[in-house]
């Protein structure tokens, strides 16, 4: 199951005037289009197109743009997932707008079930979805894509209900990178072996693919041939990484400002680690200048092994500050982030008291979190991260809709007139 143009559809629930009009949702900081309604796609707006290029024509097109309203999308996503979980005991939430469900039954029953799920999402939550039903996850994703593209399916496509000749024609038509699990960067290498379309890959020898590429790619081949080999992940046991990355509303030009950014991100990464009861062993900090300004580029990054697995904001911030000397004062950095990797459950192996972080013992992380929860983000921070009035580089969301479902003061308004 996949929600159609998810962010745009979530915006439309509470603003019916967006119905039938081109709608786009912009990335962090109102940077570029990350979601386009069908009408916006028809205008030729491409995914990732920067807002400053679209904006001059928005009025003429009647195009409506919205900043990313993560609070709203999270709430709508969770409603959809809870609803769909009623249709199967076996659900893997794959992303904010996609999930896999394990279902059994005959062809017609499965199609009916898919239609029932689609109708439930429309009636309960108010979002349009497509359902792809197939014996493997890879084929289910492909069926879903097909259901989206071809209106004749009515939003529900069961792979095996489509005549074999039509399925083959589709696979022969679609380039190989359209399939789930095949990265665009691999298309060249695949082309070198005569593999251009999905069909070519489906016909390839799985063992040869494993030897030339990876086990992951071999699984894709087998899945295309109808053998399920990507298991349902009922619960992701260990997350491999956690990324905290944003672009800035005003570019960062000095190491000193970058230091402040790193402190804030470290604090937020720490809060997320603590929430999932995880500790990190490695921290990577990075920054980048604008992609649209090819002169004066700089993409510094540092990898810092941490002395002990930790979620301590003080230690994470210190580690992230290693990026600061690599910042060229004067260049315009438009984004930065930190990534923590090699994660493990906290408290799995209590460190010897000798090595225990002094701050951890004093529980500074949870304390900062408590204060932030009560008085809002930005009310407290580590060192330079705690600034009065909030730093001016923080996220810009000028076209933000209300947080309709998560804030009592921002409820949708119904007219009684």
């Amino acid at each position, binding site marked *: 199951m996949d929600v159609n143009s998810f962010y745009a559809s979530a915006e439309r629930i*509470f*603003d*019916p*005037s967006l*119905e039938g009009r081109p709608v786009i949702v912009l990335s962090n900081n109102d940077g570029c289009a990350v979601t386009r309604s069908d009408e916006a796609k028809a205008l030729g707006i491409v995914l990732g197109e920067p807002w400053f290029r679209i904006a001059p024509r928005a009025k003429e097109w009647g195009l409506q743009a919205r900043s990313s309203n993560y609070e709203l999308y999270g709430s709508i996503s969770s*409603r*959809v997932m*809870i*609803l769909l979980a009623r249709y199967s005991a076996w659900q893997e939430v794959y992303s904010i707008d996609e999930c896999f469900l394990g279902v059994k039954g005959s062809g017609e029953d499965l199609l009916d079930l898919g239609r029932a799920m689609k109708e*439930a999402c429309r*009636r*309960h*939550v*108010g979002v349009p979805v497509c359902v792809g039903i197939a014996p493997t996850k890879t084929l289910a994703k492909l069926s879903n894509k097909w259901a989206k593209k071809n209106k004749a399916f009515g939003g529900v496509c069961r792979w095996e209900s489509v005549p074999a000749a039509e399925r083959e024609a589709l696979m022969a038509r679609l380039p190989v990178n359209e399939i789930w699990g095949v990265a665009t960067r691999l298309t060249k290498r695949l082309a070198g072996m005569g593999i251009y379309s999905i069909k070519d890959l489906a016909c390839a020898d799985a063992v040869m693919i494993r030897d030339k590429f990876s086990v992951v790619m071999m699984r894709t081949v087998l899945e295309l041939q109808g053998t399920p080999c990507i298991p349902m992940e009922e619960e992701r046991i260990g997350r491999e990484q956690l990324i905290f990355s944003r672009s800035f509303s005003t570019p960062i030009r000095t190491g000193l400002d970058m230091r402040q950014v790193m402190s804030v991100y470290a604090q937020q990464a720490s809060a997320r680690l603590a929430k999932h009861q995880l500790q990190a062993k490695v921290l990577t900090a990075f920054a980048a200048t604008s992609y649209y300004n090819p002169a004066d580029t700089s993409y510094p990054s540092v990898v810092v092994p941490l002395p002990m697995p930790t979620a301590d904001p003080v230690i994470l911030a210190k580690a992230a500050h290693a990026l600061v000397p690599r910042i060229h004062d004067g260049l315009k950095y438009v984004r930065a982030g930190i990534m923590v990797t090699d994660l493990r459950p906290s408290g799995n192996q209590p460190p010897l008291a000798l090595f225990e972080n002094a701050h951890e013992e004093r529980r500074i992380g949870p304390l900062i979190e408590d204060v932030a929860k009560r008085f809002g983000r930005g009310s407290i921070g580590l060192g330079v991260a705690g600034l009065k009035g909030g730093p001016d580089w923080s996220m810009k969301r000028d076209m933000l809709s209300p947080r*309709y*479902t998560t804030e009592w003061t921002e*409820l*949708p*308004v*119904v*007219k*009684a*007139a």
Partner: protein
Amino acid sequence: MSLALNPRVIVAGVVPWLVPVAPVTVECGYPSPAQDYFSGEIDLNEHLIQDKTSTFIVRVAGDSMQGAGISDGDELIVNKALEPKDGSVVVAILDGELTIKRLRITAAGVVLEAANPKYPSIRVPELSELRIWGVVTRCLHYV
């Protein structure tokens, strides 16, 4: 305090063995007689929300539903999944706006009524042309 809850007979000549206990927990003696009956405070979510996937809370702007006990500024609990019936108070989509009305489905036709004589009723040619966003189940009125 704990001791007072668990009176014990003190036999002459025997020094009672006092166990220090936190005032709220009952360490020995009888458990609280209410313990088996207590299954949590009243939870408004449980009573006011039938299905959390389809229930939304909205705020009223205007006085057109005054006669139905719905005032300007009240919050409404709306269930999107309910089937609207004759007499239901509904949130309808009118001219791209969420609007609250009472739905009338009669042999004579479909009408969206206000509950205030100041506002006219809206006649709808076909039920299928009407877009209902959700059905109001409760009004949270400020008193």
